[in-house]
Structures are given as C-alpha cells and as structure tokens.
C-alpha cells in the first residue's frame, strides 16, 4: 500500500480538476470583494488590525500591515488575480500556486474579521495544493519522480482528510451544544440579523418543527460524512446531500462563499473517471492537431488567426487534403473535408467538437468556453456548424478550389 503512494498517480485528473475549481472559487471570492476594497482592505478600513511585528511570518503572510506597503494593498489583488488566471490556464503551475497562496494569505490577513470557515479551509487546501501535481501530466519514472509522486499523493490525500476533519471536529463540538441537542439551533440561527433571512425566520416561527428536522439532518450529515465519504457506495449520495446543505447555507444563511467552497471541496473526492469526463470541457495544455482545408481561403484565414492566438503553441495546424499527421491520414478525404478534424492524443473530434478543442487551448477563447460547452451539450453547436460549413461557398473548396480568398500568401 505504501509503495503505491510513490508508484502510481492516484489522483492525476481529480487533482487537476480540483485545482481549477478551487482557483475559480478564489477568483470569484476576490471579485465579489473588490467593489468594497477600500472599506475592507484599505489603510483606513474599519478593521481592528494587528501591528506589523517584523517577524518572518509577518514578512511572508502579513506584509499588508507594513506601513510602507499598506497604501499599495491593491497590488496584492493584481498579483492574486493574475496568478489565479495563470493557475486556471495551467501556466507555470509550481510558481503560480506559490504566488496564489502567498497573495491570498496576505489578503486574508489584511482583514481577518471577514474570514469564515470557508476561508480557513481554502488557505489550508491552497497550501496542500502547492505540493500536489495538479498539471494532469504524470511524473517521470526516476527517483525524483518517485519522490514527487509520493509527496503529491500524500498532500492530496491530506486535502481529503482535512475536509473530513472539518466535519468530524464540528460534529464533535456540537455534542455539547444544548441547541443542537434539542433541535432548535436552526430556529435561533435564522432569527439572527447576520445569518438569518426575514422570510425564513418567519417560516421558522410559524413552524418550529422545520428547525427540528433541519438541525437533526445537519447533525446526521456531519456525523456520517467523515466515515461514509471513504466508501464508494456512500460517496455520491453524501456529496449530493452535502451540496444541498451547503447551498442552503450559502443562500439561506447568506454565507455564500463558505457554502460554495464546501461544495467545491467535494471535488477532491471524485473518482478519476468522473474528473476525466468533466475535464474534457475545460482548458488544457495538451496539444491538438487540427486539419484546415488548404484550398479554402476562409479556412486558411481562420488557421492564420488560430496561429496568431496560439502563443502557447498548443495547436498544430495541418492540411485537410494532404495531411502530415499519420492520425489524420487514416481518416478518409471525404471526412476530412466535410468537417474540421481534431486529434488530441487518442481522442478524435470533428465539427463543433473540434472548435471546442481549439477553445480549450487558446487563452483568449477560454472566455467563450462556457457558451461553447452549452452549445455542444445541447447539440446546437454542431447544427450551427453544419449549417455554416456546408453552405454554397464551401462547395467549390471540395473540388480543390475555393471562390473566397486565395491561399498564395497563406502557408502551412
């Protein structure tokens, strides 16, 4: 069992998905706070701050309290958002994750009073993720690879254990609370101004039995989670119930970012096959070979645009009529000309799915990825593609010449 830690990539795809999800959450968290940056983080923010004490920890995690740095606090946000963007796109992950962690810790420490359990969990997960291989690519088969793999697997396992520890500790501490014992905790929580809501508070006053049900359900979930989540059969229902509970906390109690990060944290428990399926819709660093019709002027202009946008060199542009790639050569000419073909590793995509593969690799097109995924999932994307690609203007291209544009100045 122990040598498995160093021999196998146990969480390769799940770690990659987890990294993207946590960074997306962190980006959203920061963007939600940015409109209030002066009130919460500025030098004159209404926060009781500790003094900069000159210790090594202060220099690393509490730099925002330094009198010379405090007026320039917005740079921490620039650094954090930049690092988050690079982290989501998978650019220089080792350095990026360290930058995300350091900038986040400094931002959190600028205004400690706004932090909740979700922030606490996120800072721990970000630390562990610095040690995890979240690139989606396996380590090499040498000594350093074995060490890196062992550390990565152990750190990711720690992410999972940390989430279980949250529930275990919270549930054990609740054992001493009389309001949790008599089932009235939610009744009082929803009456409060900070965590309540007038409608839900009124509903609870009208039907206190709802508090009884909600409180005992929350307790049962918190007791079950630390044990049940390790059992494959229990995992799916527990994640579903957990998401419902935490979305209730997010919208009912107004702890939006806390509720959301708890839901995101469940991704660490996803089996590899779930993560792999989801990652097919997300940005990637793997290369893709795309076949463009070299006799079609419009197609070649699109190819030039793709080459211009592909500064990370993730797209290999090939020809549809006379491809260089052996994988493309295996496909029939008719198929290559009928729809755009994309080969990404072992995966073959065509038509709108090939465009989606492009969008996953070009940083500027990543912004359109959610819309593209929606179009692909509904089938509208493929229909739109077929409608546009098989109109009259493309007909002449199939015979080896095209009525739009020329190919003389466009080389592959």
């Amino acid at each position, binding site marked *: 069992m122990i040598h498995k830690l160093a021999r196998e990539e146990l969480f390769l795809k799940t770690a990659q998905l987890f990294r993207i999800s946590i960074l997306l959450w962190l980006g959203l968290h920061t963007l939600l*706070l940015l409109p209030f940056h002066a009130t919460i983080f500025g030098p004159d923010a209404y926060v009781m701050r500790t003094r900069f004490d000159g210790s090594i920890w202060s220099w690393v995690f509490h730099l925002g309290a330094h009198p010379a740095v405090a007026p320039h606090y917005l740079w921490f946000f620039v650094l954090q958002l930049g690092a988050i963007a690079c982290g989501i796109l998978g650019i220089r992950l080792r350095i990026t994750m360290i930058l995300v962690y350091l900038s986040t810790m400094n931002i959190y420490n600028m205004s400690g009073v706004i932090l909740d359990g979700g922030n606490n969990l996120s800072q721990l997960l970000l630390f562990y993720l610095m040690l995890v291989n979240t690139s989606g690519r396996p380590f090499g088969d040498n000594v350093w690879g074995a060490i890196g793999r062992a550390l990565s*697997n152990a750190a990711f396992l720690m992410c999972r254990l940390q989430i279980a520890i949250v529930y275990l500790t919270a549930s054990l501490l609740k054992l001493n609370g009389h309001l949790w014992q008599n089932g009235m905790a939610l009744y*009082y929580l929803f009456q409060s101004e900070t965590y309540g809501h007038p409608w839900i508070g009124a509903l609870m006053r009208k039907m206190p039995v709802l508090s009884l049900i909600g409180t005992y359900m929350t307790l049962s979930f918190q007791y079950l989670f630390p044990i049940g989540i390790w059992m494959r059969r229990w995992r799916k229902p527990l994640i579903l119930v957990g998401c419902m509970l935490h979305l209730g906390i997010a919208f009912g109690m107004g702890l939006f970012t806390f509720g959301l990060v708890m839901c995101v944290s469940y991704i660490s428990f996803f089996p590899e096959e779930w993560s792999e399926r989801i990652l097919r819709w997300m940005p990637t660093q793997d290369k893709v070979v795309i076949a463009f019709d070299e006799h079609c002027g419009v197609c070649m202009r699109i190819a030039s645009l793709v080459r211009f946008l592909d500064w990370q060199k993730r797209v290999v542009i090939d020809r549809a009529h006379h491809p260089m790639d052996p994988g493309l050569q295996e496909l029939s000419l008719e198929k290559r000309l009928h729809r755009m073909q994309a080969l990404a590793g072992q995966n073959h995509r065509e038509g709108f799915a090939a465009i989606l593969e492009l969008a996953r690799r070009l940083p500027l097109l990543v912004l359109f990825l959610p819309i593209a995924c929606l179009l692909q999932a509904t089938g509208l994307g493929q229909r739109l593609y077929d409608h546009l690609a098989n109109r009259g203007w493309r007909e002449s291209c199939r015979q080896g010449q095209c009525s739009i544009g020329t190919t003389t100045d466009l080389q592959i």
Partner: protein
Amino acid sequence: MKYRIAGACAAALLGFHLLMIFVYLGPPNLLQYQWGNFAFGYMQNIFYQNWHLFSPNPGINSVKFAVRCADENGHWSHWKDPFAGALERHQLTRITGYGKVLALFDDIAQSLKKEVATKTRLDQALQETPKQLARRFAVDYCLTRHPEKPEHLEAIQFKVMEFSPVPFTKVQDAKYLWDRVVEIPFEPIHRRLAKEASR
C-alpha cells in the same frame, strides 16, 4: 526500493501532520499536555484551523450599532443604523460581497459590546481599540452618509443594541419580533474629539 522509501517517507510525513492536527484540535488530554506547545507552534502560522462552525451553540442574539449626530445648535439627529442598507441588499441577493461587509461591521458592534462587558484593556498588538474604531467610523458616517448629516458637525454619539429572539417555547403567543432589546449608549463625543478621530 525507491518507491518503498519515497512512499514510507511521504506516509510518515502524513502521519506526523495528522498527529499534530489531532493534538491541536483535540480536547485537553495527556497528548496535549505533553505535545501541546510543539503542536501549537507547528500549527499556528501555516496550519491554523478552527472548525467551531456554530458550535457548541450558535450565537442567539443580534447586535446592532446606531449613530446620531448633533449640529452647532446642539440639535441631535435621529439614531440611524449605518448598516441597514447593506443588510437589505445582502438579504435581497446573496451573490455579493455585502455579507463580508456586514461581518466587518458586525465585528465593530460585537467588539464594543465585549469591551464594555469585560472591561478589557487595549491589546498592544492592535492598532486601534474597538471604541477608537467605532468613533472613527461614526465621525466618517456623520460627515458623509448620515441622512440627516448637519452642515457643521458639533458632536456624535453611538450606541450598541442587543436583540434577543423570542424563545421557541413562547413563539405562538409572541406579539413582537424580539423578546428583549438591551441598549448600551456611549458618551457623546464633541467636535474637537471628533476631528481628532477622523484625522
């Protein structure tokens, strides 16, 4: 062999870290007695964690902060809750940062209440006491955002109000939203002091 050694090292690190978490989060026991200081030192800066999450009991009472301002004739404005607008927006839609802003304001009121209740002295590590912070906030509020802000601010005053909800046993017969409201008013602060605070 390399896999066994690397795996064993990683497992040992994991085991050590889990032990430290157990000592740090666990109740006072023999382990904490012997390892407590080391575990606290190890956890405090990087692995600090607190999972109370409304335990052992959620906070029952709501605390509010109110401010009023006086002009040069000594005429006082009405008491205003400076955070009412933020609360309204937070209750209207949850996908905003107003929740965190309210947590920040809530801390001012809670800290003031705590300061009064426990008569604690200024923590040397803090840049401002709760009262100093509340005064700075109240002055800024009276000068800029109070709906009845005077042309010439002469004095400010703030108070903390604590609202206790109706117990569930009395909820059927309750006539009011709150069972009990306690007010903790603070001394008015006159212009000279207010200027100092805003500076």
